[in-house]
């Protein structure tokens, strides 16, 4: 009964808000609506409406998928200091970080669905109902770990929020093991996603053992960068209480992660360029252009400039603890890593193709519209999460308050 009332109240909560809240939701819903119309077109005509071809058979969708798995994995960068090192300023935002991870996983799964040619046969991959090729296919592993991570990152924050709503302390005995489990699991989702590409001997660009560590390092930059921006927006608009100290601590951790990311990239560049074998071709295509084909070159070069600039910003304490430069650095990382992990990782894996053909892929309007729609959907889900979570954390939305109000009306009614 109590749970039902809580549920009803949360539903009512998401329908009321300030003018900004309504405008923001309407904006996101409009993008989602447009994207749905493009997706209907894709369902009807098939993936032929995208710019993908046999030569480059994965593109923008899988690039976004890879990036978002990284964003989700990066929630541990909030979990570890909060729960392992008991860094209190972060403890307040860890629930929000986990909900951000959950939203990112939902988006990642939607990108896989958008990339499936036959979404009507989605049930074939569902264990026990269809046939999940476990443990043969890394995609089967990914299905399992991503869904497990999604469950983990919704159960823990919901449990903590419900407890807080009722004014009780979360039982540590339940929370801590799940939180501890979520740390290796976060590493796991991104490792498995890296292995998805890494295990293909046919694609020398991905078939490098440094790929999974590179994935993790870049994820630990882009995910927290996104969290930094979002938390500041929520602090301004939704009354989220968060200390600058927490932001600066996250930024410090990001500096280490970015160093490792750039170092690993340098290690890979050295190996490819110094030995200069035939396997250099995709790297050459990406960074210099190959046989006159160079559409990704300006992208990756600007991404490099962004990542290095951001690294310097986060490395120097003066710029790290200045909100303006911190935000510039975060935006540079979000975009820089997106290019590096999205277009810069998926596409060159296919160029040149196994028979040496070069097809230059860049996403078209249909793919961009559907991708924006999925991003908008993820932000929408996250907005609704925040609409409930922040008032609970601030104590504005609690059972005692509700009980007091309910008691008052009952008292007034009995007096009439």
């Amino acid at each position: 009964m109590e749970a039902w009332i809580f549920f009803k109240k949360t539903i009512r909560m998401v329908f009321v808000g300030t003018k900004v809240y309504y405008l923001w939701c309407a904006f996101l819903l409009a993008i989602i609506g447009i994207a749905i119309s493009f997706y209907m077109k894709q369902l009807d005509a098939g993936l032929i409406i995208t710019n993908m071809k046999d030569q480059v058979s994965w593109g923008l969708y899988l690039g976004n998928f890879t990036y978002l798995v990284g964003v989700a994995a990066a929630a541990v960068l909030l979990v570890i200091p909060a729960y392992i090192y008991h860094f209190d300023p972060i403890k307040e935002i860890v629930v929000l970080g986990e909900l951000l991870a959950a939203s990112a996983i939902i988006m990642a799964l939607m990108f896989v669905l958008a990339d499936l040619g036959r979404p009507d046969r989605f049930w074939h991959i569902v264990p026990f109902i269809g046939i999940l090729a476990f443990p043969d296919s890394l995609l089967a592993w990914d299905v399992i770990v991503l869904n497990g991570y999604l469950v983990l990152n919704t159960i823990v924050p919901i449990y903590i929020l419900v407890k807080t709503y009722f004014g009780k302390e979360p039982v540590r005995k339940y929370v801590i093991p799940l939180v501890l489990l979520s740390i290796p699991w976060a590493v796991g989702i991104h490792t498995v996603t890296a292995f998805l590409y890494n295990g293909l001997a046919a694609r020398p660009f991905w078939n490098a053992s440094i790929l999974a560590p590179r994935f993790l390092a870049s994820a630990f930059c882009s995910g927290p960068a996104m969290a930094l921006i979002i938390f500041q927006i929520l602090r301004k608009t939704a009354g989220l209480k968060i200390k600058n100290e927490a932001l600066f601590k996250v930024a410090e951790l990001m500096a280490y992660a970015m160093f490792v990311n750039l170092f690993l990239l340098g290690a890979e560049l050295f190996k490819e360029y110094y030995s200069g074998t035939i396997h250099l071709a995709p790297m050459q295509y990406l960074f210099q252009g190959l046989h006159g084909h160079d559409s990704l070159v300006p992208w990756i070069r600007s991404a490099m400039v962004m990542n290095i600039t951001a690294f310097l910003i986060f490395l120097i304490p003066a710029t790290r603890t200045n909100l303006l430069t911190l935000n510039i650095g975060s935006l540079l990382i979000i975009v820089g890593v997106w290019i590096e992990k999205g277009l810069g990782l998926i596409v060159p894996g296919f160029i040149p193709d196994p028979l040496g053909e070069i097809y230059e892929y860049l996403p078209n309007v249909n793919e961009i519209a559907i991708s924006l729609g999925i991003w908008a959907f993820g932000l929408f889900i996250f907005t609704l999460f925040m609409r409930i979570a922040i008032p609970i954390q601030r104590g504005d939305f609690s059972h005692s308050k509700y009980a007091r109000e309910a008691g008052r009306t009952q008292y007034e009614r009995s007096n009439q």
Partner: protein
Amino acid sequence: MEDRSQTRRDFMKMMSMGAMAALSLGSLSCTRAQVEAFLQKHFREMTEAEKKEAIRRLEETYFRKYGKKFHISTQPADTAVLWGYGLDLSRCIGCRRCVYACVKENNQSRSNPQLQWIRVVRLKDGSLINLENTEHYYNPEKVPEPGFQYMPVQCQHCENPPCVRVCPVHATWKEPDGIVVVDYNWCIGCRYCMAACPYKGRVFNWGQPNIPPEELNTEVHYLGNRPRMKNVVEKCTFCIQRVRNGRYPACVEACPTGARKFGNLLDPDSEIRYIIENKRVFRLKEDLNTEPKFYYFFSA
């Protein structure tokens, strides 16, 4: 006068009702076939009766769609057979007749998307193994051209096929006679197999396949050349519909120079065994441990 218009109206009403009923019945039965196709099991999990039922439904669907009677075989592999393919690089002249024979035999989409299972690449003399030096779109007046070699590449029917290992739903597998097949009704269109194949042996129906009805080949195998649907992967099956009936693959028959050889690797007297034992043979990308059953050789 009034009566007659009344009856005419009644007649019209009856006719239109009848048409409506027929239409809705038609659409109902159509949805039923779609529902059955949607719920259809994986080919390898079907009983004989379920296979028969699936074939009957497919034949009906094809008849409705193309107005032609198809004969769909489900003939299984002969356990005494392991198929092997030989390609004589000293004879291939790059005419690409094999490509078009294959397209026709195997009901590949002709346009939007145009699909081909065989790709013949052109290489300058001296750069045979490095496939990064290939030319794909060349159009000389006459073949062969001096200074060039031609190499047809298609599915190599690997002993350790990476494409099969990566499929998340086991929609593709290696048959006992070595042919790597796809259940087009089970493929979810994720294209992971295409990313995994080192030979570009697989192509994808990015849109609804287009085949002129008069050019359809109606003698088909369930795992081979039956018409495909949009957004599924397809590939060379060594013409499973032919070779399991004692015929050569269409590309072998079409080759004007006799560069293409085909046979049973388990039969010590077969031509393919003779080639492997007596010619200078190599396989593509052997360093990847895929163990292709497609042997390139030089007879001269």
